[in-house]
C-alpha cells in the first residue's frame, strides 16, 4: 500500500490529507472535511484547477478583461487553454459572466468574463 500526502486546495484552510492507495484504488483518505475526500479522489485520477487569465479587449476602459473557467479545468490541458486565450479578442462592452469561449477545447467548461468591461468613453465619474 502506498501512502501519499496531499495538500487540499478546496478552500483556504489548506489541510494536509493522508491518502492510502493500492494501485488504482484509494483505500482511505484522512481529511478535515468531506470536500477533502472528494479532492483526493479528483486529484489522483483527474486533477483539475480553476484557471484565470486575461483576454484582449477592443475599445475597453482597460486593454484587457479578466476571464476564468466556469468550473475546474483538466490540469494537463492548461497550456492549450492559455494558448486559446491568447488568440481571443473581444469587443467592449463586456458583461460579467459573458461566455468568452464555450466548451473550451471540447471540455464541459466555459471561459467567462470575470467583470464588466465598459467602453472607454462610457466610463465617467
Amino acid at each position: 500500500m502506498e501512502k501519499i500526502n496531499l495538500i487540499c486546495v478546496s478552500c483556504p484552510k489548506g489541510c494536509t490529507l493522508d491518502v492510502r492507495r493500492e494501485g488504482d484504488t484509494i483505500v482511505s483518505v484522512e481529511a478535515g472535511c468531506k470536500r477533502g475526500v472528494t479532492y483526493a479522489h479528483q486529484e489522483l485520477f483527474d486533477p483539475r484547477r480553476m484557471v484565470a487569465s486575461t483576454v484582449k479587449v477592443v475599445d475597453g476602459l482597460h486593454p484587457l478583461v479578466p476571464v476564468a473557467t466556469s468550473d475546474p479545468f483538466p490540469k494537463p490541458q492548461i497550456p492549450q487553454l492559455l494558448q486559446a486565450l491568447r488568440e481571443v479578442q473581444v469587443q467592449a462592452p463586456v458583461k460579467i459572466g459573458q461566455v468568452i469561449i464555450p466548451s473550451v477545447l471540447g471540455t464541459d467548461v466555459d471561459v467567462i468574463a470575470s467583470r464588466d468591461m465598459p467602453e472607454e468613453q462610457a466610463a465617467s465619474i
Partner: protein
Amino acid sequence: MTQRRKYDVIIIGSGPGGVAAAMAAKQTGAEHVIIIERDIEAGGILLQCIHNGFGLENLGEDLPGPTYAQKYIEQARELGVEFMLETMVLDVTPERKVFATNKYEGVIELEAGAIVLSMGCRERTRAQIQLPGSRPAGVYTAGTAQRWVNIEGYMPGKNFVILGSGDIGMIMARRLTFEGANVERVLEIMPYLSGLSRNYVQCLLDFDIPLQLQHTVNRIIGNDRVEAIESVRVDEQFKPIPGSQEIIPCDTLLLSVGLIPENELSKKAGVRLDTRIGGPIVDDEYQTSVSGIFAAGNVVHVYDLADWVTQAGFRAGAAAAKYAMGKLTKKNRTITTSGGSHVRYVIPYSINPDNLKEHEIPLQLRVSQPIESPVRVVVRAGEKEITRKNEMYARPGEMISIILQEKHYDSIMHTDELVVDIIER
C-alpha cells in the same frame, strides 16, 4: 458629481472593506453614505486579483477577485450608496471633516457623522528590506507587477526571481508562467512559507517552480537592467552563511515581502496606531481611538482572505451608521485583549461586553512562530478559561479566529482583560 457636503457616513476606499462598510451603513439606517475612491473605478486591489478563491466563505462560491468586487459594488449601488471616484482624500480631521480633491471640483470639503477608514495596505519595498547592490530597472513589488500584467497588459520581464513566499508572490509566479515567462525560483528568508499552503500547491508545485526556504537576495547585479541576483542561505538569526552564495541570472526581481496597513490619513486624524503592525487600535466595533472614526480591513491588520475583510467592513459600517445616528451601544465596560503564549497580536484590542447581547465577537490572532502540531486556542480571564478551540496546527501566515458568544457574557463581565494563549496539545 455630488452636490451634498454633509454625509452620515463617509468611507475612504472602495475595496472589500469599504464597500461592505457602506452597505452595512445603509442597511443600518444611515441616509447619506458615500465612498471616496482615488481610482477611475470602484473595487480596489480586488480588480487586479484576477485569480479565483474569493467568496468561498461569504458566498459559497469560488470567484475571481473582480467578480467578487462587482457583486458587492452592485449591491451597494442598489442600496443607494454614492461613489465619488477619481478623488484623492488629502486630510481627515478628528472633528470628522474630510478634505479631498479631484479634477472636476478642485478641493472639496465634506463633513461626516462618522468615517470609516478602509484604505487597505501597501507593499513593503526594496528600501524597507534594505537590499544591497546597484539600482537597475527590473526590481518591482509583486503587486505592481500584478497590476501591469492583469490590468494594463504589460509584462515586466522574461526571467524572474521572486523574493518572498507571500500569497501575491506565489500567485504572480503562476500568472507570469501563464503569460510565457520563466520563474527561476522563489526565495523565502523564513524557515516556513509565509502565504497559504494551497497557493504553494496551485502556484508553485503545479509548475515545478522551486521554493528555497531560509534564502534571501544578497545582492542585485546589473546597471541599466537587472542581470542577475546573488542568493544566499541564512542561519536562524537571518545572517548570511558564508560560501552559500549563488548567482541566479534573471532580468526581473519581484518582491513579495509583506504588506503594511496604509494609515497616513489615520495619522492625520490623530488615530492611535499599534506600532507593531501599523494599524489603528480598534474596539470590537472597529472604532478607533478617535470618536466616530472607524477602520476596517487591511488598514487595521492584513487579512489572509478578502472574505474576512468584507465581514470586518460589515461590522464597522453598521457601527459607524449607529454612531452617526447617536445609537451606538454605550460603553459601560471595556475589556482589553492581549496575546499570551505564542500569540503575536489579537484584534480587536478591546471589547464592550454588552455587544455580546447583540452579536458574536470574533477575536482574530496570529501566532509568532509556526507550530506544526495540534494546538489549543484558549481565551482566558486571569486563570479562568472562557472558551477554547482546537486547531491541527498554527502558522503565522494563517489567521486564527475564535468567537466570543452571548453565553460568555457572564464569565467575562467582571474581568478587565482577556488573554489568548496557544498551547501545544
